[in-house]
């Protein structure tokens, strides 16, 4: 394939990330059928000293960068309570705060809090009621009404929110149903995650190629007809197609892999792959690269490739670069998907990359130029 070797991005690990992910609690008040988080029933909370240790490095990075994000991601971050969140956020300076929520606990007081601290909100919802049915509480009751109540509160207060939608069964008909729902919901942006086989979720994520391509093609059509939502995945694919047409495809991806430090409640740092936080395996141990309570975060990131699995993953990225025509768009896929699908990190194609990278690009192009 002529185009395979042109790509020069995603080589090695960047010395400074563009954001960090913090887990204020492991607890989630929901128990979604596809959830990959192992400790979601337990309320293991981050101590303020952990956030302070992270902030020591992050504040320096933020001062040197144009922008830097701190993402609060659980469990369910609002289950931490506002008082504790304020304590955890306090040591950070010059950063943007983001929070990913299922919205079930969001009320007027939370909305005031989000506005007061200028927190960017990501909402997890999977579409109309019957599609959100996998989001349930511990008693197995559907969380849909609670999610909608929380979303109403966000709208009432004018808190902008992006939506993240997990799709379990992609098809063209589903795309036609989903887009109007999110249009109505009032999110300014929408990201689609086709369900992944990750963590404790071992359900198969293999789908018929036509269904997945048709899903993305229909989403593209829906977006073009009414482009009020920023449609993350489809817009990125179009951006890439435009760059490729201008022979600028090699400028799309970052030069290096973002280390994306994920800091667990206890200070353990997992690099590159947030989904691996909290897991361990006989071959690789607990995937963590250190703990901020004993080692500065900057040092943990600088030593990223000392971790056996991270260097194996980088070999996998190089294997993708050498073999895959979608590399300039995809950048080599996500580490967790390789691990959970193949049990190792130096492989290439996964069901996840088929669904969310290859067929995304193909589906968008199918819409434009059917073949």
């Amino acid at each position, binding site marked *: 394939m002529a185009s395979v070797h042109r790509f020069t991005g995603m080589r090695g690990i960047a010395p400074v990330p563009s954001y960090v992910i913090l887990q204020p609690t492991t607890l989630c008040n929901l128990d979604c059928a596809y959830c990959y988080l192992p400790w979601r029933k337990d309320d293991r909370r981050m101590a303020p000293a952990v956030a302070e240790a992270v902030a020591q490095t992050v504040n320096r990075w933020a001062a040197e960068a144009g922008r830097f994000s701190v993402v609060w991601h659980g469990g369910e971050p609002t289950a931490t309570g506002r008082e504790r969140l304020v304590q955890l956020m306090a040591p950070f300076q010059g950063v943007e705060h983001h929070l990913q929520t299922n919205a079930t606990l969001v009320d007027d007081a939370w909305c005031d809090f989000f506005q007061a601290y200028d927190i960017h909100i990501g909402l997890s919802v999977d579409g109309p009621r019957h599609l959100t049915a996998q989001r349930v509480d511990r008693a197995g009751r559907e969380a849909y009404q609670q999610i909608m109540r929380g979303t109403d509160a966000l709208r009432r207060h004018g808190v902008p929110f992006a939506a993240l939608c997990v799709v379990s069964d992609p098809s063209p008909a589903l795309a036609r149903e989903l887009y109007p729902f999110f249009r109505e919901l009032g999110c300014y942006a929408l990201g689609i995650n086709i369900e992944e086989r990750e963590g404790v979720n071992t359900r198969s994520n293999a789908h018929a190629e036509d269904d997945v391509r048709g899903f993305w093609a229909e989403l593209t059509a829906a977006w*073009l007809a009414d482009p*009020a939502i920023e449609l993350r995945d489809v817009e990125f694919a179009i*951006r890439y*197609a435009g760059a490729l047409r201008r022979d600028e495809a090699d400028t799309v991806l970052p030069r290096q892999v973002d280390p994306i430090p994920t800091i667990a409640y206890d200070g353990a740092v997992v690099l590159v792959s947030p989904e691996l936080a909290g897991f361990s395996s006989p071959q690789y141990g607990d995937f963590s690269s250190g703990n901020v309570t004993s080692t500065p975060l900057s040092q943990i990131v600088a030593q990223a490739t000392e971790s056996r699995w991270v260097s194996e993953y980088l070999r996998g990225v190089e294997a993708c670069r050498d073999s895959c025509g979608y590399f300039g768009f995809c950048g080599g896929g996500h580490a967790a998907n390789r691990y959970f699908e193949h049990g190792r990190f130096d492989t290439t*194609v996964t069901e996840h990359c088929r669904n969310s990278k*290859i067929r995304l690009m193909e589906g968008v192009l199918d819409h434009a130029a059917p073949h």
Partner: protein
Amino acid sequence: MPHPTEAPDLADRVRADGVSALVEAAEEIWTGRRNNPDAPVAGPRPFEDAFPTFYQFSNSPQR
């Protein structure tokens, strides 16, 4: 090592007229957003604004 069986030459495929029209339509949408900061979508911007966790799909300045 598994190998992508579905990999066509994307560079050829994006040359189709339909893709040109799609890219133009999208660029018009992005320009429209930029010109209307009060619109639900404020303008072309890093995806990190909405999805900081959207790693590897990034249009933030390249480093």
